[in-house]
């Protein structure tokens, strides 16, 4: 007789869901989906060991389990707390959680510069969304923000340590995808910073993924630097036969030009599959790719501002050769008169 699969019943904001034992509260909430999913800055489902650093996913456990119904004494990080049978969790229904999250956002923004107009991540930045949803307009911090010089990590990636919120995702990428770790966190506490040892260039096929996993604009694509704003480019799903990776990417078009290549991101901003550096930096022509379809964009996202449904939208004006000729003639005549 097959062993019966034990499932834990959890209630998150009054919505019951049955999940496997060992699932975290965050993942249980993601199985329900919608507004009740706690935001996460440092947790990344595709990377092992992430989470527990940013504290934005704090939730209140109002009932520990069926056997021990006492509530947990403090708010818990939902990305690191596994569910128990009969657990009751409050996320957006609890004023405590909303208030705590507001404090966390304020804390994350203490050293974060307000350079969104310059930052290339603006428009797809998780911290921007979080600040917009939960944060205050002003800050109570009166001291100078810590500042760093920009660092070029290799010729394709740029590190703005000013913007870093120390989520450690990029460190986990380097640990788990590359053979040899070349960058990490130096110093401790308020002084900690992401760095390579003596500005050593990162050289690995998959190291470009640190750009994708970075929730803020700390690690950005140098080939896309200041090229265009994210919301003026159009994402299109595409694939190619790549010997090193799966080759499934999102191309960001401006007109006929591919400005940027990233991994395909899901609704939580996490890539589905990591892509290699050749796909990301070298192949920026439409001829390199097989186009699939425009990437579905959340209708509340600023990227959907220039909405479109097909690759080649029908032209607004009928092409009239006679009219074009006449216009050219007219222009030539007025030019002569000048």
């Amino acid at each position: 007789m097959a062993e019966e699969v034990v499932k834990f019943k959890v209630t998150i904001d009054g919505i019951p869901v049955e999940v496997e034992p060992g699932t975290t509260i965050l993942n249980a909430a993601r199985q329900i989906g919608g507004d009740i999913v706690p935001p996460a800055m440092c947790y990344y489902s595709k990377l092992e060991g992430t989470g527990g650093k940013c504290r934005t996913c704090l939730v209140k456990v109002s009932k520990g389990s069926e056997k021990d119904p006492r509530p947990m004494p403090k708010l818990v990080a939902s990305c690191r707390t596994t569910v128990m049978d009969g657990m009751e969790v409050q996320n957006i229904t609890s004023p405590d959680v909303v208030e705590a999250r507001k404090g966390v956002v304020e804390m994350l923004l203490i050293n974060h510069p307000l350079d969104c107009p310059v930052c290339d991540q603006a428009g797809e930045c998780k911290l921007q969304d979080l600040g917009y949803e939960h944060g205050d307009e002003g800050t109570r911090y009166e001291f100078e923000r810590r500042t760093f010089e920009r660092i070029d990590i290799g010729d394709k990636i740029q590190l703005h340590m000013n913007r870093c919120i120390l989520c450690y995702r990029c460190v986990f990428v380097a640990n788990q995808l590359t053979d040899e770790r070349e960058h990490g966190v130096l110093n401790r506490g308020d002084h900690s910073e992401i760095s390579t040892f003596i500005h050593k260039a990162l050289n690995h096929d998959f190291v470009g993924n640190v750009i994708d996993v970075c929730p803020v604009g700390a690690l950005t694509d140098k080939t896309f630097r200041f090229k265009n704003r994210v919301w003026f480019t159009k994402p299109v799903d595409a694939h190619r036969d790549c010997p090193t990776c799966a080759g499934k990417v999102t191309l960001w078009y401006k007109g006929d030009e591919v400005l940027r290549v990233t991994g395909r991101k899901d609704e939580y901003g996490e890539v589905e599959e990591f892509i290699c550096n050749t796909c990301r930096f070298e192949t920026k022509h439409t001829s390199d790719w097989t186009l699939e379809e425009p990437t579905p964009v959340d209708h509340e996202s600023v990227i959907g501002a220039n909405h479109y449904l097909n690759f080649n939208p029908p032209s607004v004006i009928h092409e009239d050769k006679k009219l074009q000729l006449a216009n050219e003639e007219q222009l030539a005549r007025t030019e002569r008169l000048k």
Partner: protein
Amino acid sequence: MQSLSNRKKVIEQKPMNIWERMYLPAIAKGLSITLRHFFKKIPTIKYPEEIRPYSKNFRGQHSLKRDEQGRERCTACGLCALSCPAEAITMTAAERQKGEENLYREEKYAAVYEINMLRCIFCGLCEEACPKEAIYLDGPHVTAEYLRRDFIYGKDKLVEPKFDITKLNKENA
């Protein structure tokens, strides 16, 4: 067909009588109306020399502002272009090089900034969207041109001239 409003008048055309055929009385009548208007108050003004008082929130031609040190404020964030309902604004960003710190305020600046004045509806949303207080619609009316392409205003027309306080003192002295 019967008229819907019942106010239709049917005009009868008759040959002119002797009084009408003389013409001169009608001309005299017309001239007297013209003469009477010479002594009336003129409702129009001579525009470029004379300007009517403008409303405080009048929105005219855009100008790209400089900060107190004469550096361009615009950082090419694209929010004006995003907010523009007429899609009149386009821009290309560039990175500030070393030695250009006195020209541009931020590390990114607009190398090309164009507003199509034929498209612009002067709604002022760009002004409202700007996080850097760089664009204001505080200029005069946009002038007429002969060619459509002359309505695309570049940075040469939009960026406000540098304000030189030393020159101002000389002029006043």
